[in-house]
């Protein structure tokens, strides 16, 4: 059974690249364009891991992580932040919200896949 990953980013081109990298490794991918959209998609299928951007309209990534952690089904779902931000302050915010990793764009596919396979739910 293929595992499902939710990818949240307001840039369609970036969602596409992440999708290509993940699908190439055999994962199923669901896309969302901001925090609100992502929360609506969380009421659907079982999701084994979330990759989320930070700067998005409607609801930013950090808020989304906090909201997602409140949902009972997704409390323990690992979340990787994927963003252009590299400041320590922002990283600390992400860690406090409950993210498991912080990846600065652009990502190396091999490294991202290694992180995913390390953190993904069994």
């Amino acid at each position, binding site marked *: 059974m293929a595992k499902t990953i939710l990818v949240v*980013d307001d*840039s*369609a*081109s*970036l969602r*596409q*690249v992440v999708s*290509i*990298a993940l*699908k*190439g490794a055999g994962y199923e991918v669901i896309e969302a364009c901001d925090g609100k959209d992502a929360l609506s998609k969380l009421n659907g299928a079982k999701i084994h891991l979330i990759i989320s951007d*930070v*700067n998005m309209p409607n609801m930013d990534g950090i808020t989304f992580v906090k909201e997602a952690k409140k949902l009972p089904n997704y409390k323990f779902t690992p979340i990787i932040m994927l*963003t*252009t*931000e*590299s400041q320590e302050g922002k*990283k600390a915010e*992400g*860690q406090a919200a409950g*993210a*498991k*990793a*912080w*990846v*600065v*764009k*652009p*990502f*190396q*596919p*091999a*490294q*991202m896949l290694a*992180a995913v396979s390390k953190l993904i739910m069994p």
Partner: protein
Amino acid sequence: MNGIKVWRIALLLGAVGVAMLLVLAGLDTINIASAILFLAVALVAGWWESKRLAQWHAKAIEDAKNQTRAKLESAHSKSSMSGLKEVCMEAMPIWSKQIEASRSQTETAIMDLAARFAGISQKLEAAVRASQSAAGDLAGSGESGATAVLTQSRTELMGVLETLKAAQQSRNAMLESVRSLTSYTDELRTMAAEVAAIASQTNLLALNAAIEAARAGETGRGFAVVADEVRKLSTLSSDTGKKMSEKVGIINTSITDVFGVAELSSKNDMQSVAASESTIRLVLERFHEVTSQLSNSAELLQHESAGIGGEISEVLVALQFQDRTSQILAHVRKNLDNLHRHLAEKDTGIDARAWLAEMELTYATEEQRKIHRGADIGGAAAQEITFF
């Protein structure tokens, strides 16, 4: 004018002083000398003072000039400032739209490129996998492995040859048993000759019996008839014997003929079998060559595909820059729109520092911050993954 006045005052003072001195102290040398000295000092003081005044005057004029010029300039620039504002009001929305157009066109093009690239990469992977599995099957020791197929083919083809050879052998055996028939026909011939001999002897006996019967006269007449009949029988036997010999001759000829034909076709068959054997060997060799070539090219393809995997990774990294440039352009556009709105709604001035500080807050990438501070962007940052 003031300068000249000062001169006069100074000279007057000097003259008064000298006069008083001369009057009071008398007209001797020392007094005259000091009087001259007094005058000189007065003159110098007057000259110095007037010069200072002239400088002050000149400066005052200069200042007045500068003030007037500044006033003129500011009036002038105020009018050119208003021209600038008009340009901004008109041009900013155009700039904004053009930035958005180029950003969205690039985004569309890059997404199309990425999709095609993903397609190519998948097809390549599938092709490599297929070739690898085919080569793997060929190289492997399973049922479809080249060695197994070769061995099986050889066995089956050799089996066919063996069947041919066995057929030949049974035909040869049959020919041998046909040939052995000739020994029987020889015996028959001998027996036919014996029959002929017996017939001729019987004939002689019958002749003798007829002579003896004639000698016996009347009593021998009955015997003469019997002797006659015996002669007839012996002739019949002789004829039968001759016919038998003829038949035996015919059979023998037939057997020899059949045998001759069979031997010829047997020779042809053996040649065909030998030719088949060498053809089979050739075919198996060529098959072996082809499969080893296939195996080699599959190995080469696997090598290349490993290198291609690295290229694919690099392309995926490069495609992500569209997202960064898109963010930077979007921020520039937002800023332009804000500035435009500010100019349209409020006619007050703008605090540049406050504006720039607000701009800095909206940044999301290191490049934007570096550019804002005036630093060099430098090369692409190294990959950072931080685990919490």
